[in-house]
């Protein structure tokens, strides 16, 4: 699977080897799952609700531990990095309602003990990246759903992570907002050179965003199919209207059907 070249660019960012997760109540949620994600790659995990894709993401983030198997996450040495190599965006914006936008974004830096002046610079940079500079002093309740999600994204970006993990981040947003955030995310990914692992149950979103779509089946979750989306970058809104996009979506949807038929008992 890995290419012959061993250059820095081809190194793995995330490598899951025969990972399983069995919950305390005996439910096998995941695996065995094998997944390798190259550095700088944009990968989507696609599957029905409850197929373990969120569990896989939480395993990579270290928010939960595997029952068996190996979770490998690369840690690129970088002396200017204060904070964390992994950024996580939840399905909900998960903001602290008592803190302003800038204080929410500040959180990872504050926990890492970064000096305030350096932190302030990073915060305004992150807020500029998600086009929220004017709302630094606002409180979460004063923002729309899409803006809250941008704050959440800025908070993940503020540590300048190598790997961005996103757990159905745009699922609760309206379509227009979601499309805009999709484009913004792609632009950030290109600019910041991150590895992105994006969990979604939307075929259209996964095809539009990713270089590789990993389709998962459920109970326990494992990889049932993989698709490479070889569309020249940069992708823009035109891609959504193209014939190749429709063809990819059809192909991926068909691969997803068995995943859902396995769920009829649920």
């Amino acid at each position, binding site marked *: 699977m890995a290419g012959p070249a061993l250059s820095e660019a081809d190194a793995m960012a995330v490598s899951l080897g025969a990972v399983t997760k069995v919950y305390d109540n005996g439910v096998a949620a995941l695996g065995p799952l094998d997944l390798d994600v190259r550095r700088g790659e944009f990968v989507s995990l696609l599957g029905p609700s409850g197929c373990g894709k969120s569990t896989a993401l939480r395993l990579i*983030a270290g928010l939960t531990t595997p029952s068996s198997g190996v979770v490998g996450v690369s840690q690129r040495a970088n002396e200017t990095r204060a904070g964390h190599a992994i950024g996580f965006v939840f399905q909900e914006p998960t903001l602290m309602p008592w803190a302003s936008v800038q204080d929410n974004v500040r*959180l990872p830096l504050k926990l890492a003990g970064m000096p305030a002046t350096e932190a302030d610079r990073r915060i305004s940079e992150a807020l500029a990246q998600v086009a929220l500079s004017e709302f630094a002093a606002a409180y979460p309740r004063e923002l729309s759903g899409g803006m809250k999600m941008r704050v959440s994204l800025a908070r993940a970006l503020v540590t300048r992570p190598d790997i961005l993990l996103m757990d159905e981040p745009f699922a609760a947003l309206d379509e227009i907002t979601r499309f805009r955030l999709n484009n913004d995310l792609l632009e950030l990914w290109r600019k910041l050179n991150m590895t992105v692992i994006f969990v979604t149950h939307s075929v259209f979103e996964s095809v539009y965003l990713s270089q590789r779509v990993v389709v998962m089946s459920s109970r326990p979750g494992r990889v049932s199919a993989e698709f490479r989306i070889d569309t020249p970058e940069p992708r823009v809104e035109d891609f959504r209207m193209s014939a190749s996009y429709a063809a990819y979506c059809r192909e991926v949807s068909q691969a997803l059907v068995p995943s859902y038929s396995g769920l009829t008992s649920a």
Partner: protein
Amino acid sequence: MSSSRDFVRFLLPVVVLAAGIALWELVVRVNDIQPYVLPGPSAVFQTLVADWPVLSESLGVTLLTTLEGFVAAAIGGVALALLFNQSKWLEYSLFPYAVILQVTPVIAIAPLLLIYLQQQTAVIVCAWIVAFFPVLSNTTLGLNSVDRNLAGLFSLYGASRLQTLRYLKLPAALPYILGGLRIAGGLSLIGAVVAEIAAGTAGAGSGLAFRIAESGYRLNIPRMFAALLLLSVAGIVIYGLLALISHLVLRRWHESALRKEN
């Protein structure tokens, strides 16, 4: 629209109050009821003015006791909840006794406390016993109501226990703590009064509740009413102050403090 509605909401209870007072005065005058049976509102008010030196001093005593009991309850309740939150063993060991302390009527405990403690201390302890439990249980509830994903975020970024407590758990629990304090304010007044009455029957004390008991023995009914009125007003002011503080602290972010829009 909404301001006229607010005005009506304010006006209606005032009208009811005025009507009640007028009716009371009327009944007393028409039936020529003696003040030692039922004083009219005007007689109560005259007594309030005439006895103000005595009553105001007693009010000061009761308020000080209430405040001391309240502060002890606030500190004790929050501190116990924090301890319980850090150690489940401690919580399992001690929580049942907090409940027992809460469900045993304080009026039954007060005489015992008065035997073992100095009177002033006993009164404060009574106020504390009644008031600390809502602070404890509300704070515990708040500390346990932290958003699961936010807790995950804190652990992802390697937050220490102290950081999690300070930046996540305490702010998340704040609305609950303030709710507990609002209840505790009124309860510590009740605790102070109960203890004063218990102490008063033992022959000492100078708080408002003692004045009520003392006036009862002397059939000085107007003064009983005047003291009762002061206690009521004190309770209302305590509640209002705590509600105001709660509103000021939470107004930027918490649902309870937000004006209903749309």
